């Protein structure tokens, strides 16, 4: 290399554009022999080298880009999605939008459940949710916060059709037209050539696609009339939703289907609220006036008593508090849940003692991972020592005994431990044969913490031995002999000279083993029973059995945070680039 490149970063093998670049810079700094140095094509050398450097950077990035995009899409995006799910809580807002809006005025401290107005909105929301079969999902979601809500929602969803039956019957007895699909269609469109209210249609499209996460796009052959939607706002809205759902979800024709009960109830409410039908001249004007006159003799629809009759839990303010607290689109509820806390009106509170399991599980996971890491150090250190101090040939042979378990399938090793540890297993059989334990009282070594610790120590031991070995190999044996010849005892020589040099190996191995063990799932699941399971088993349970994905995501995020901190520490101590395999 040139003598001038002292300003640049030295590279090991050959000169690179960067070296030349620094050389050129140095030359220019000295003033050169008058004017900038030029390259062959006449551009200043500095600029041309700069361009070469940029080209090289671009080429490197182009080579990396496909993989980076691949990993970002297949791996990082899923992790981000999980983090998002751990705070996401849109289901309350999308399933009961009107209820959420009207319940915000309710004083949650009050003894009383909300009033009639909230229940009316609840009726419209619940009716639609029940038609779309989304109410049970919301029930399940709120059940995590307040037990009993799932069955409340399920049973109420069934009874929505019957609410306000008397009014619908009265309406239909008054005039057959209220049962006629074509009449309703004409009434709601406001007749041919009437001005349409596309805003209403679009807001309802959005509402439905939020609710069902399907796409409610496309022509449905219906636009609510502008005049009628001003006159009868509730009815127009209910009918629009009905029309959208009928065409897109059920794939029927609007004008051939009788509207839902909710539409008729909405009409009753609109007429009772004093809609000015006297001035209305559009289709169905006569029927509307007749209906208004008939309804003026009937009392108001009582939504709240009707709901209370379906299930008296609707009158309990705990139910309403749960709905109110968990109505925002994002919540810390899952995270609080994951650390045995609950969100209440007064802020955050600890859960009752008998419901606290996650802190205990996190503690157990950490404790068992520490025990596993500790036993790996204890067992791995002598092995790594002897491997690095034996002659190369013997060490290589013994290395096979370490590498074979490393390469063997995890399931094979786990099933081997099941074979070894179970009460009719190999270890118990041998001990009974030797008379160490009686046939009647065989040791319980599986489906508990002991089983998990033994099996996982075995499985993770190679991950401890390999980094330790690669560090110990670099410690010259002459150091120990020098220490001894200077008068150190065996122990002093080891403890003061050898051990400090092997600490990086212990650190690397420990962090690796700890990171791996903290997120283990398969082995604890098979040999752990109930007392030897980890937090990851709980995460899997919430994903596949209890379907509480938000909680699973929150638990996973906490675990991920712990691992990332350790990963960062590993990077500081060992460096990601120095990870070696085999």
């Amino acid at each position: 290399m040139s003598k001038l490149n002292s300003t640049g970063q030295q590279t090991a093998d050959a000169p690179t554009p960067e070296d030349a670049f620094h050389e050129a810079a140095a030359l220019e700094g000295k003033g050169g022999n008058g004017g900038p140095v030029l390259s062959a094509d006449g551009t200043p050398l500095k600029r041309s080298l700069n361009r070469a450097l940029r080209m090289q950077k671009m080429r490197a990035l182009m080579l990396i880009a496909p993989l980076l995009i691949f990993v970002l899409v297949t791996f990082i995006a899923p992790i981000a999605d999980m983090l998002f799910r751990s705070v996401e809580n849109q289901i309350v807002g999308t399933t009961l939008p009107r209820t959420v809006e009207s319940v915000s005025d309710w004083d949650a401290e009050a003894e009383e459940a909300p009033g009639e107005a909230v229940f009316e909105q609840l009726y419209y929301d619940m009716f639609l949710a029940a038609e779309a079969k989304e109410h049970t999902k919301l029930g399940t979601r709120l059940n995590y916060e307040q037990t009993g809500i799932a069955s409340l929602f399920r049973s109420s969803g069934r009874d929505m059709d019957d609410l306000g039956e008397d009014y619908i019957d009265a309406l239909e007895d008054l005039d057959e037209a209220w049962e006629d699909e074509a009449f309703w269609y004409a009434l709601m469109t406001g007749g041919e050539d009437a001005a349409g209210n596309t805003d209403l249609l679009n807001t309802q499209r959005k509402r439905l696609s939020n609710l069902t996460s399907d796409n409610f796009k496309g022509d449905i052959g219906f636009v609510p009339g502008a005049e009628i939607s001003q006159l009868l706002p509730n009815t127009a809205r209910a009918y629009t939703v009905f029309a959208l759902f009928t065409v897109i979800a059920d794939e029927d024709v609007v004008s051939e289907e009788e509207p839902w009960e909710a539409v008729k109830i909405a009409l009753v409410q609109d007429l009772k609220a004093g809609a000015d039908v006297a001035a209305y001249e559009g289709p169905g004007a006569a029927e509307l006036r007749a209906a208004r006159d008939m309804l003026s003799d009937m009392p108001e629809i009582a939504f709240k008593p009707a709901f209370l009759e379906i299930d008296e839990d609707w009158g309990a303010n705990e139910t309403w508090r749960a709905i109110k607290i968990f109505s925002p689109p994002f919540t810390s509820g899952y995270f609080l849940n994951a650390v045995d806390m609950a969100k209440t009106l007064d802020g955050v509170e600890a859960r009752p003692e008998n419901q606290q399991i996650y802190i205990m599980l996190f503690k157990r996971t950490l404790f068992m991972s520490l025990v596993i890491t500790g036993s790996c150090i204890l067992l791995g250190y002598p092995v790594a020592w002897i491997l690095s101090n034996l002659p190369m040939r013997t060490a290589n042979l013994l290395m096979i005994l370490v590498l074979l378990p490393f390469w063997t399938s995890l399931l094979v090793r786990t099933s081997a431990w099941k074979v070894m540890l179970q009460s009719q297993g190999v270890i118990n059989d041998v001990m009974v044969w030797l008379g160490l334990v009686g046939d009647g009282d065989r040791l319980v070594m599986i489906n508990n913490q002991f089983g998990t610790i033994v099996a996982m120590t075995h499985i993770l031991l190679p991950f401890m031995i390999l980094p330790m070995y690669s560090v110990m190999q670099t410690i010259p044996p002459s150091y120990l002999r020098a220490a001894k010849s200077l008068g150190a005892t065996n122990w002093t020589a080891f403890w003061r000279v050898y051990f400090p040099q092997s600490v990086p190996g212990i650190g690397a191995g420990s962090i690796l083993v700890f990171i791996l063990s903290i997120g283990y799932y398969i082995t604890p699941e098979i040999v752990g029973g109930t007392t030897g399971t980890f937090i990851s088993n709980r995460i899997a349970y919430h994903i596949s059995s209890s379907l509480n994905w938000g909680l699973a995501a929150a638990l996973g995020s906490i675990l991920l945070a712990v691992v990332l901190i350790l990963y960062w520490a590993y990077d500081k101590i060992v460096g990601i680039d120095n990870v070696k395999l085999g």
Partner: protein
Amino acid sequence: MSAITLEHVEKKPLSFALPVVGAAGGFAGLFVGTAQGSGILGVAAGAGIIALMGFLCLGILGKEMERVARWGIVVLMAVAGFLLGALPGLVVGALFGWFFGWFIYWIGEGRYRAKLVPYLTPGQVLWHFTFRVICGMIFFFLITPIVVVMPLSFNAENFFTFTPEMLRFDPEGYSLKHYRDFFTNADWQQALWNSVSIAPVATLLSVSFGTLAAIGLSSEHVPFRRAIMAILISPMIVPLIISAAGMYFFYSRLGLQGTYWGVVLAHAALGIPFVIITVTATLVGFDRSLTRAAANMGANPVTTFFRVQMPLILPGVISGGLFAFITSFDEVVVVLFVGSAGQKTLPWQMFTGLREQISPTILAVATILVAISICLLTTVELLRRRSERLRGMSPG
């Protein structure tokens, strides 16, 4: 250490040798004794018998009759073992006999000093061998579980444990029926087929993307090198259960959950760190002036890559590929969530087998997998040596 030629092998006095072998005999006798009912009696008898044998061998027969004496002990112990515990007893007895025959002469003739430096104190010698015994026990712990499943997979019964017939070495106790079950059962064959069709595609994806990126990463001027490296290595560091959960949520949004390609993409992502690590490690020793030389002689970048660079880094690429393959072939957590019944792989089938119906077919599969992993281990080791030879290092 091997340069030291001083040896310190000399015959030890009987007053040292006899208590030592007696103690060892007593220790062995403890197990025989407890197996037969009385531990204390066993210790006394063991110590007495072995000490007596030691006296016979060392004091009377001497070094000249060593071969005869050792065979005599083997036969005697084998017969005693047979009387106490039938055929398994015979095997254990013969092994005990072989060990004690060797041990008596090893102690009595002072041969244990042969490979040690002569200035060690007796305490240091004792520690030296205790340490070796401890290491031996750890190696035993490492390898026993894997060895134990092999004979059990030939069990004639549907048990997970050694039957009395097996211990009597009765041919009736052994059979290949679990292997037959594996090769004929539709569930297992489907699982095998799924594993075989998922792993290579995932490996191909991670090797082709990974090698390109590793070459990019190993050039000198990569902006954000550390950040990129951290992202690419992260699938190895993030716990599998978290990756599985995230992929399950995200892939179900995309409609990939429960599909073949979903599993392949997930496995490819998991295999990438291994490819990156092994290939970048190989590229450290790659002489960059070779590519410049090729370019100088008129080769375009593609030709340079395939004719110059690729042959040299091929060992690293292949062993990275093997790591990626074994990761996918072995993986169970992610496929459990991302896959559906149609993508049931071999480890998944084993996992359900272990949780629900316990059948020794699992052990037959395990034995086959161990055989496969031995082959892979050998391949990787050979490749590593070849790569080091190519780079001019002495293979270690």
